[in-house]
């Protein structure tokens, strides 16, 4: 009985975390349009089993840990969505700009090397 209860709770929070994750991504796309990094991440999820497993596990795992720590489902949801948004605004989005600059520098250096060879 206890096992079933635990299983039910885990399933409940896995679904809860997955829904929060999808809502966050939906929110990001709704507010900022469809940024390349988010699209790339979904492309990776589609293409790579490791990425699918990672995203499939991390969200529910965080939700379960926080549930065990706090037992406040609403707070867990708010914090999870909040952290995902902060991650996007503070890390993923600026990193995308820095990576684009790096790619431009690489392309310019490649062109420069070709011209020197000629």
């Amino acid at each position, binding site marked *: 009985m206890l096992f079933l209860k635990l299983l039910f709770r885990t399933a409940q929070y896995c679904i809860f975390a997955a829904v929060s994750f999808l809502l966050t991504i939906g929110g990001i796309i709704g507010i900022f349009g469809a940024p390349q990094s988010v699209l790339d991440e979904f492309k990776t999820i589609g293409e790579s089993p490791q990425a699918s497993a990672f995203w499939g596990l991390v969200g529910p795992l965080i939700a379960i840990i926080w549930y065990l720590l706090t037992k406040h489902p609403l*707070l867990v949801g708010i914090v999870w969505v909040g952290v995902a948004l902060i991650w996007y605004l503070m890390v993923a989005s600026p990193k995308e700009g820095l*990576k684009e600059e790096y790619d431009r520098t690489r392309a310019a250096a490649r062109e420069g090397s070709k011209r020197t060879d000629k």
Partner: protein
Amino acid sequence: MNEVYVLLTAAFIIVLYLFLVRRVAEVMQPFRRRLAERGERLLAEPTLTEGDARVLRYALDHAYSSGMAWRFVWVVPIAGFLLLVRRLRGKPAPSGPTSGGALRGQLIEVTNRATLSTLSNSPLAALIVFIEIVIGVILMVPLRPLLDEIQSLLTHDDNHHHHNGHNGPAAKLA
């Protein structure tokens, strides 16, 4: 109420960490631009071997990969263990780039810079790799005499077999 504090503290720590990740990315940007320039110049070198070019291109492509930074976490201990086994069996460590001359030194430097650049994507992964290296070094200090002993036994055993192979009963009969 205590549970709420735990949750908020966890969230605060995560946000603080995210801030650190962002700051590190900004600080590393000029370093990465130089890496891109030097790496591409090296890739244009006509004497660069195909194998070295492949490694360098891979390193440059993954300069912004957090996944690659986390891959280091399990690659470093496995590589350390394999190097130890090679050493015990009396084999030399892998020699690194195959391109010769001044290119070799430059390749090692650029690859090291690319590794640092990849690790900086995840300060937590970098910290774990650092701890792994420190643990490896600490373990190696007391184990060194024992490892030297095992190595000498293994190499002695190999020489002994080799010796017997040439001067065994068959050789004596011949």
